[in-house]
């Protein structure tokens, strides 16, 4: 099994022309060439929206400080700092195993020294947009497992929900405190060529990457403390404390006892599971630590059994309980769903949340926001054609060479067509698939994703990025630490930020602009 959201993958949805502009950092010494080097980022001007150059809502003060900081260092010095970052990750054991890697080699995720900057004003828009979205998605989940009003009013076709693999009949009529199904949500955001923010994907099952967000900040503060202080960064280090509070607030127990449930150390996200358990000061458990008795969940400790009130699970629904889901699951806890349905334990995120982050449901999120909240969406969706709709299918079939076609139930970039890069044979093959099973596909236009300056072997070059903010929800509040995980495609022209395919990370700095 895999932890669905661990693969840090930006679907390779958007075709762009590869470009290789590289800004030259002084290979020897900056001091003699300062006037030349201070326009470092300007050298990266291209057809893509550059986060550090092209944001007209920003006065660019933070970008300028970063540019100057880079300019007074030689390329070798910067490479040395990046090497120190790698060494830090290796030393701390912040590594992951790639599934299928026979060597079992531990890899570190590439870290790029140059941070991504988001002005506080922009961040507030992102944060409020994410909060709005998650609120609507939670209402939607409560609705489809109860009154199903959105289906009855035919805003979303019933068959798309009831026939969805992630729809969980166990959850029907089961009410949750504050109607919170997704306590931890990761919203994948991109910017297009105009700098407009779009939501690419909602992750409501087991979104991962938050440990990388925190470690990125730790390493930034270690390698460039003066720059961090100068930019008065909004803090993110309180995320584990917030997460624990949010998890506890979803329980009705007094002083709820929380555990993190991991599939084990062979899971590629095990580092993150252990990190969060340690930082929250709660036990990291596997199924063999837990047992159910009289519909209560207990954990085995050296001082005897301890009742568990909240399980932050990091395994998929199918594996949670062999009595309720896959009988061959060796990772689950027998009787867990029964205890859950008796409301004796909170499972976060709730079973059955996956139906709300399915690609075929994604096009309806704007309507959910209008329907449940009576609000206009703050963040836009990427326009999406649902091939199940005849008129959409006609358009997609006529424009296959310009569109990206994806399986509605697919993930990880598999089973998709990137029209502008595809051969005529591949397009013909997809045409047949679409005609045979249109309901299984969606299509999206190609967008030029934004870029950010990134340190490469040849100097500073632009690389495509995305952003995953983490939204924490309880019946009483919604919290989003300022920033999130910025994922960067380390190869020129590439859109793949998947960690197993060489994708990397950047620290995300939310800064308050001080207008002079």
């Amino acid at each position, binding site marked *: 099994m895999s932890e669905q959201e661990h693969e840090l993958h930006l679907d390779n949805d958007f075709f762009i022309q590869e470009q290789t502009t590289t800004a030259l950092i002084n290979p020897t010494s900056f001091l003699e060439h300062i006037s030349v080097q201070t326009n470092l980022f300007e050298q990266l001007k291209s057809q893509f929206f550059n986060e550090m150059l092209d944001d007209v809502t920003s006065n660019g003060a933070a970008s300028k400080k970063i540019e100057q900081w880079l300019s007074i260092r030689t390329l070798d010095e910067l490479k040395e700092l990046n090497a120190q970052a790698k060494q830090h990750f290796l030393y701390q054991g912040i590594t992951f195993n790639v599934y299928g890697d026979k060597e079992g080699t531990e890899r570190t995720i590439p870290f790029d020294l140059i941070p991504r900057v988001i002005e506080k004003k922009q961040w507030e828009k992102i944060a409020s947009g994410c909060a709005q979205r998650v609120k609507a998605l939670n209402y939607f989940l409560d609705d489809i497992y109860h009154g199903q009003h959105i289906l009855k009013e035919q805003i979303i076709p019933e068959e798309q929900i009831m026939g969805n693999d992630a729809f969980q009949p166990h959850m029907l009529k089961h009410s949750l405190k504050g109607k919170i199904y997704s306590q931890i949500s990761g919203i994948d955001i991109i910017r297009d060529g105009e700098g407009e923010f779009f939501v690419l994907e909602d992750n409501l099952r087991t979104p991962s990457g938050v440990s990388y967000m925190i470690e990125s900040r730790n390493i930034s503060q270690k390698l460039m403390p003066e720059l961090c202080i100068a930019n008065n960064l909004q803090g993110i280090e309180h995320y584990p404390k917030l997460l624990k509070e949010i998890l506890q607030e979803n329980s009705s127990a007094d002083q709820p006892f929380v555990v*993190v449930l991991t599939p084990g150390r062979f899971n590629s996200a*095990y580092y993150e599971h252990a990190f969060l358990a340690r930082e929250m*000061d709660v036990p990291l*458990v596997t199924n063999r630590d837990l047992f159910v008795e009289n519909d209560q969940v207990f954990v085995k*400790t050296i001082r005897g059994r301890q009742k568990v009130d909240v399980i932050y699970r990091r395994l998929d629904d199918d594996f949670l309980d062999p009595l309720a889901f896959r009988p061959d699951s060796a990772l689950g806890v027998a009787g867990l769903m029964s205890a859950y349905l008796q409301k004796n334990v909170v499972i976060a995120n709730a079973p059955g949340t996956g139906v709300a982050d399915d690609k075929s449901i994604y096009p309806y999120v704007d309507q959910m926001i209008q329907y449940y909240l009576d609000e206009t969406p703050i963040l836009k969706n990427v326009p999406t054609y649902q091939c199940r709709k005849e008129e959409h299918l006609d358009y997609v079939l006529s424009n296959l060479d310009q569109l990206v076609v994806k399986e509605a139930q697919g993930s990880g970039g598999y089973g998709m067509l990137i029209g502008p890069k595809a051969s005529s044979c591949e397009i013909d093959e997809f045409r047949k698939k679409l005609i045979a099973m249109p309901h299984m596909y969606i299509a999206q236009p190609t967008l030029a994703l934004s870029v950010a300056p990134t340190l490469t072997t040849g100097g500073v070059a632009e690389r495509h990025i995305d952003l995953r903010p983490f939204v924490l929800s309880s019946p009483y509040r919604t919290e989003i630490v300022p920033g999130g995980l910025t994922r960067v495609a380390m190869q020129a022209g590439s859109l793949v930020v998947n960690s197993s395919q060489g994708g990397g990370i950047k620290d995300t700095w939310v800064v308050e602009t001080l207008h002079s």
Partner: protein
Amino acid sequence: MVLLNSSAHQIYWLGRYLMRVKFAASHLPFTEDEKATKFAAAFGLVIENAELLNHYMLDKKQTFSLLNQLIIAKDNIQELRGILSAHAYAELNNVINTLQPQPDALKKAVEHCTQILEAEHEDIYLFLYLGQKIEQFDIKLRFGQDLSALVSELDVVVRQLAHLNWENIDENWQVLKQQLTWDAYYTFTQQLENMFEG
């Protein structure tokens, strides 16, 4: 900190592996075939050549080599990642990852690992110490050495465990103290294993 039975089990075995490596490394290198043969035989190995045993002990490809014992210890450390401090985990990981296949390096590595673990939470130390002492018991029993001092040390540990409601082990511990046989030893350690199961 809440220590799980499974974590305590990992710590216990980590203590055993570290003690086992420390003991064996302290005998390396063997220079006399007779001593090597006796040493190997105590662990069920038929190796009658000192040089061969020296090579065997440091050969990663051999399942029961000292290096492999430490690799198993590394698995224990991985399992404990959620409970060890970040610094302790990083140091332990680093010690084992940079290990050189030489007796002195092994001894130093084991000492370093033990120091790191001893500085962690007192519950971690308790089960580490239990594992170390049980392994020493095993070794001394194997080589027919005097166990009286060790029995006194283990007596203290058993009393500490009783405060954790592990008093079930006391009966078999009393039997072991009186008999000092393999049967009594296995009965006692099996009961420890059952306690870890919960």
